[in-house]
C-alpha cells in the first residue's frame, strides 16, 4: 500500500492504510454495532461487530440492492445461475430463493434455471469421487425446484464453433446464430434421450441431464488437452474459457438471456490484479464488472461482487447453506504456481495486516468502465475471449517476440501439406486472431491437435476469410496478364 504520508498520496486512500487492531483476549463479548442488543458474532468491514440477526439483514439487503441498483434483470426474464458448488455461488442461490419467495412488493421476479459443470476429470477426481459430487449436487439442485442442468466439462469438446461468435444483442429476431442454436438444442435433446434420465421431476421445463459420467474416451481427450498445457497459469485460463463457453452455450440453446456467476469481492479483486498481470488490462471492466456483455445475446452478471469471502463463509455457516467443494486444479510436481494462485496469496496475505486491501482494489476496479462497443464484427474480436482485439499498427512491433512461433504442425495433421491449407493449420496463423493475453496463453497450450474442435474450426474459418479478403484486394482492376488470378 502507498506509504506516502500527508494528504491524498495520489491513490485516493486515507493517509495511511489502517492496520488491523487485535481485540484483547479477555474483552467481554461485544454488543452488535447495529442493534446494540445481540452479542456480536463476527467482525466485518473495518471493525464492525454484527450479531447474527443484523448480519443476515445486511447480507440479504445487499443482494437486493445490487440487483435494484443495476436494473439489468427484467421481470419474467430467464436467468441461468452458474453454480460451482462453492460457497459464493451457493450463497447466491440461497439469495435468489429467498428473494423469489418474499412478499409481493419486494419479490424478485425473474425465472431462474441452474447449471452445474462437473470438472472432476481435470481436478484430479476419480470416477467414484465425481459421481459422488454429482449426486450431492443433483440433490441440492433438485431441492430448489428450479429447472437444472448438469454438464460435464468434456462436453466442451462438442461445442459448435458459433459459441466463439457474439450473438445478436437485444431482443427480436435472432440472427444467423439461430439455426446453430436450434441445431445445438436438438443435438442436446437427442443426447439426453439416449441417456437414462429417469430422474425427471414433475413441473420442470426440461428433462435434467443424467448424472452419469461421459464416455471414457471423451475424458481422455479432455485430460490430453490439459496435460499438454505447459504452465499452470495457462491451464487455469483454459479451464475458465471452456467452462464459460459451456455455460454460455447452455444459456443460448435454452433461451436464457442472462447468466449469474458467483464471484465474490475477494475473487473479483484477485481476478482484477491477476488479469492485469496476464495482459488483460484493456478488458478489466468486462472481466470483473457487474455486467459482462461481450457475447451479445447472453449477458453475464455478477451479483455477489460486493460480498467479501469472509461474509459469505459466515453466512453459509450460520444459515446452513449446503456446498459441494471441488478440489483445486492440481499442479504438476515442480511446476510453478499459477499467477492466479500467487495473486491470491499476495492479496490475502496483505489483507491480514491491512484489512482495507481487498476493498481498495475493488473500488479502484469500480472506476473502470467497458470501452464503447465499436468492435462488433467478429474480425475485430479475439477468437478465444471475444474481447476487442487490442493489437493495431505499430504496436505490433513491440509484440514481435510473441509472433515468433515454432514451425507449422508436422504432417501428423493429415493431408495438409498443400501450400494454402498448411497455413491454416500452423500455430502462427492463429496469432492475428488473438488479443495480447490470449496470444500468451495460446503459446503455452499444447499442439493444435489437442485443442477443442470448435476452436480450430472457428480459427480456420476466420483464417480462410482473411485470406479471401486479402486475395480479393489483390486482384487488379484490369486484367493485365491473362491467366493471372
Amino acid at each position, binding site marked *: 500500500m502507498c506509504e506516502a504520508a500527508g494528504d491524498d498520496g495520489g491513490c485516493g486512500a486515507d493517509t495511511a492504510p489502517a492496520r488491523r487492531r487485535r481485540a484483547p483476549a479477555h474483552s467481554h463479548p461485544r454488543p452488535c454495532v447495529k442493534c446494540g442488543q445481540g452479542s456480536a*458474532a*463476527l467482525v466485518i468491514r473495518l471493525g464492525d461487530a454484527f450479531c447474527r440477526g443484523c448480519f443476515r439483514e445486511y447480507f440479504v439487503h445487499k443482494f437486493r440492492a445490487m440487483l435494484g441498483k443495476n436494473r439489468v434483470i427484467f421481470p419474467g426474464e430467464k436467468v441461468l445461475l452458474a453454480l460451482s458448488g462453492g*460457497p459464493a455461488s451457493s450463497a447466491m442461490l440461497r439469495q435468489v430463493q429467498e428473494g423469489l419467495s418474499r412478499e409481493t412488493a419486494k419479490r424478485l421476479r425473474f425465472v431462474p434455471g441452474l447449471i452445474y459443470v462437473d470438472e472432476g476429470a481435470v481436478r484430479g477426481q476419480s470416477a467414484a469421487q465425481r459421481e459422488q459430487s454429482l449426486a450431492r449436487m443433483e440433490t441440492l439442485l433438485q431441492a430448489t425446484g428450479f429447472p437444472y442442468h448438469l454438464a460435464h466439462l468434456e462436453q466442451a469438446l462438442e461445442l459448435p464453433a458459433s459459441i466463439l461468435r457474439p450473438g445478436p444483442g437485444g431482443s427480436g429476431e435472432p440472427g444467423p446464430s439461430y439455426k446453430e442454436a436450434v441445431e445445438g438444442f436438438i443435438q442436446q435433446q437427442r443426447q439426453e434421450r439416449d441417456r437414462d434420465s429417469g430422474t425427471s421431476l414433475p413441473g420442470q421445463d426440461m428433462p435434467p441431464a443424467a448424472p452419469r459420467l461421459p464416455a471414457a474416451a471423451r475424458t481422455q481427450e479432455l485430460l490430453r488437452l490439459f496435460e499438454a498445457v505447459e504452465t499452470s497459469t495457462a491451464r487455469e485460463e483454459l479451464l475458465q474459457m471452456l467452462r464459460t463457453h459451456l455455460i454460455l452455450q447452455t444459456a443460448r440453446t435454452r433461451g436464457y438471456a442472462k447468466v449469474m456467476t458467483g464471484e465474490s469481492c475477494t475473487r473479483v479483486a484477485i481476478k482484477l490484479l491477476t488479469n492485469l498481470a496476464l495482459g488483460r488490462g484493456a478488458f478489466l471492466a468486462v472481466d470483473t464488472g457487474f455486467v459482462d456483455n461481450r457475447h451479445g445475446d447472453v449477458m453475464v452478471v455478477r451479483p455477489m461482487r460486493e460480498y467479501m*469471502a469472509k461474509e459469505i463463509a459466515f453466512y453459509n455457516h450460520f444459515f446452513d447453506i449446503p456446498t459441494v*467443494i471441488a478440489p483445486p486444479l492440481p499442479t504438476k510436481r515442480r511446476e510453478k504456481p499459477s499467477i492466479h494462485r500467487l495473486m491470491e*496469496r499476495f492479496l490475502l496475505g496483505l489483507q491480514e495486516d491491512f484489512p482495507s486491501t481487498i476493498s481498495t482494489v475493488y473500488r479502484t476496479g469500480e472506476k473502470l468502465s467497458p470501452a464503447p462497443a465499436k468492435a462488433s464484427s467478429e474480425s475485430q474480436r479475439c477468437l478465444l475471449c471475444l474481447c476487442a482485439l487490442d493489437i493495431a499498427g505499430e504496436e505490433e512491433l513491440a509484440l514481435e517476440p510473441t509472433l515468433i512461433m515454432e514451425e507449422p504442425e508436422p504432417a501428423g495433421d493429415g493431408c495438409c501439406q498443400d501450400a494454402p491449407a498448411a497455413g491454416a493449420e500452423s500455430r502462427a496463423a492463429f496469432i492475428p486472431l488473438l488479443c495480447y493475453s490470449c496470444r500468451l496463453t495460446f503459446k503455452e497450450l499444447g499442439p493444435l491437435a489437442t485443442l477443442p474442435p470448435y476452436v480450430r474450426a472457428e480459427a480456420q474459418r476466420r483464417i480462410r476469410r482473411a485470406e479471401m479478403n486479402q486475395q480479393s484486394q489483390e486482384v487488379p482492376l484490369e486484367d493485365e496478364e491473362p491467366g493471372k488470378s
Partner: protein
Amino acid sequence: SKISVVHCFYFRGGAELLFDGVKKHQVTLPCQPEPWDIRNLLKWIKQNLLKERPELFMQGESVRPGILVLINDADWELMGELDYKLQDQDNVHFISTLHGG
C-alpha cells in the same frame, strides 16, 4: 487435579482435504502445564491432525491468510484470536475461503 477437556474441531471449505477429507474431529487434548490457547492448539493440530502440506493450513504461528477461525460459532477476532484460552466443550471451526466459490 487436572481435568482433560473435550473439543470438536471442524475443517470446512476445502480445508478438510488436508485432514484426509475428515471434517469433524472429536479430540481430548492432553494435559499440559502450558495453557491451551489457540496458539498452542495450532501447534498441536499441525503435529497430530494435519496429514499433508502444512504450509496450506498454517503460516508462522497462525493460520494461513484466507482460513477463517470460529470459536463456538463466533469470529475469533472477537475472542482474542491466538490468545483465546480454550474452555471445556469449546468447538473450533476452520473454514477455508481459498480458490473458488
